[in-house]
């Protein structure tokens, strides 16, 4: 998946090529028009989508690994370890996401590392909390108790029993984390603190488009719509996964 997003950035020609006149509306030659430097928007947009998704997926992957480890350990062990992990998570959670991202950007300096670090720090508390809760529930189940009594070693219990049974939660929350990641990257780059031009990302494109909004509205509409569709479709997948892993009864009041 990561490789796919990476190569996507190179599809549709050279995004940096000055392909035509500046700020041209969509035409048969440039389907989505050209920007303020005369670059065609199609390759720029493909590059932007690729960069945004690549960056967010890598960051969310890191989050997933960290959150799964922390959440499973804290949920299984309970007690002091649980308190410590939850205190750290609460600490991160205390910063509103974009505020935390700005703090990261201020410390690390604007750029891609800042965007990735921000995504990880914003998504870790969200995911760790839920994995911890799921793991705490699984750890109380009879099959875990009987494995302990049988003398099965702790790592094996965590890997063979707890991990597979919280994997649904991990999948659902990982999906939601990806959409949060895209939002954070977009917001940060939009504020000029994430991905830096001339490299494109969805946030960068929307920011650039915003500047020329009145003269060339297509510049913001195309990346905006792509971003919304990306987040929407990821959320729909997340909802679908949730319905599958956490099915729910419905009742009527009649």
């Amino acid at each position, binding site marked *: 998946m990561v490789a796919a997003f990476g190569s996507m950035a190179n599809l549709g020609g050279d995004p940096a090529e000055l392909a035509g006149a500046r700020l041209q509306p969509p035409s048969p030659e440039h389907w989505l028009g050209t920007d303020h430097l005369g670059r065609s928007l199609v390759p720029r947009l493909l590059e932007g989508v690729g960069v945004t998704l690549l960056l967010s997926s890598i960051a969310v992957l890191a989050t997933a690994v960290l959150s799964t480890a922390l959440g499973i350990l804290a949920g299984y062990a309970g007690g002091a370890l649980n308190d410590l992990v939850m205190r750290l998570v609460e600490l991160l959670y205390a910063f509103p996401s974009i505020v935390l991202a700005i703090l990261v950007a201020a410390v690390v300096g604007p750029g891609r590392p800042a965007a990735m670090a921000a995504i990880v720090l914003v998504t870790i508390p969200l995911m760790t909390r839920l994995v911890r809760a799921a793991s705490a529930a699984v750890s109380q189940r009879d099959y875990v108790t009987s494995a302990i009594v049988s003398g099965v070693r702790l790592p094996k219990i965590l890997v063979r029993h707890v991990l597979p049974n919280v994997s649904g939660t991990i999948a659902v929350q990982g999906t939601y984390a990806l959409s949060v990641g895209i939002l954070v990257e977009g917001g940060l780059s939009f504020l000029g603190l994430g991905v830096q031009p001339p490299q494109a990302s969805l946030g960068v494109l929307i920011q650039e488009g915003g500047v020329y909004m009145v003269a060339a509205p297509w510049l913001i509409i195309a990346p905006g719509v792509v971003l*919304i569709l990306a987040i929407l479709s990821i959320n729909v997948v997340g909802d679908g996964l949730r319905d599958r892993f956490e099915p729910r009864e419905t009742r009527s009041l009649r």
Partner: protein
Amino acid sequence: MRLFSWWIRRALGAAATLVGVSILVFLALRAMPGGFAETILGPFASEEQQRELAQRYGLDDSALAQYWLWLQAALGGDFGTSMISQEPVADELSSRLPVTGQLAVMAVLAAVFIGVPLGVLTAVRARADGGGTVGRLLSGLGVSLPEFVLGSIVVFLFSRYALGLSVGGYVPFGDDPAANLRAMILPAAVLSVFAISATARTTRDAVLNVLVEPYVTAAVARGESPAFIIRHHILRNAAAPVVVLITTITAYLLGGAIIVEYLFNLPGIGSYVVQAVGRRDYAVVQAGVLLAAAVFIVLNVVADLLVGLIDPRLGVTATGRQT
């Protein structure tokens, strides 16, 4: 007795988090390019100012002592001086607070008065075969609309076409309420979309969870009407997660306000902080972040207080195996 000790634990926890946040912010401050003195004073400070600072914060002392001095100053409202304006950061923040506060309040009100009823309605109407899909899609779309996209589009539409409202032209509420509301309604609306959708989604989930509770079945079995059951048994029982979400959102709105203020050119804390990041005016960034985190932590305690009032069973969560 249990309640009392629970509250003390909660308050201690919040205080600990606040201290943790301040340590994080302090460390970030020291890690910034240019160092502590420049971060607080800006690069163009005079020798005298630097000496004064070194004395005030004990720059030769241990990190712990420095943190303690810095914390004392911060608690006393001294967040250093803005590099740009050379004014104390605290003064600037407090003069901008009303704008951000008003935005957040308007968006939260929208979330409560539009999002909650929407959520209740879609939950009660939900059917096993997925009849609530439309409501779900709409709220799904709502949480997928980031402020910087929606805001840009709104700014574009309203500045290009005469749609009855203009962008910009902020007037303090006290000076001219009508003009103030005209200027604030668009940014508040942009900010509300996410808040309303997220509230509706959470409300829907919460109500669906309550609908399968035996006491709701019992009420149906007594022949009560849906309106009666919603009013007497569902709203309060579904309220806890919604209250928690709304407080979380309030803090989130402070973040979203950053982008909206930036877009609509409003003189709030958000636009101030964004400008500050761009100009490396770090003292301002630090103060803004600390403020936002403090607000969030306080709101969280308020949320717990409210949840405690709503549900007499104080939550005892599962905490793993205690072997």
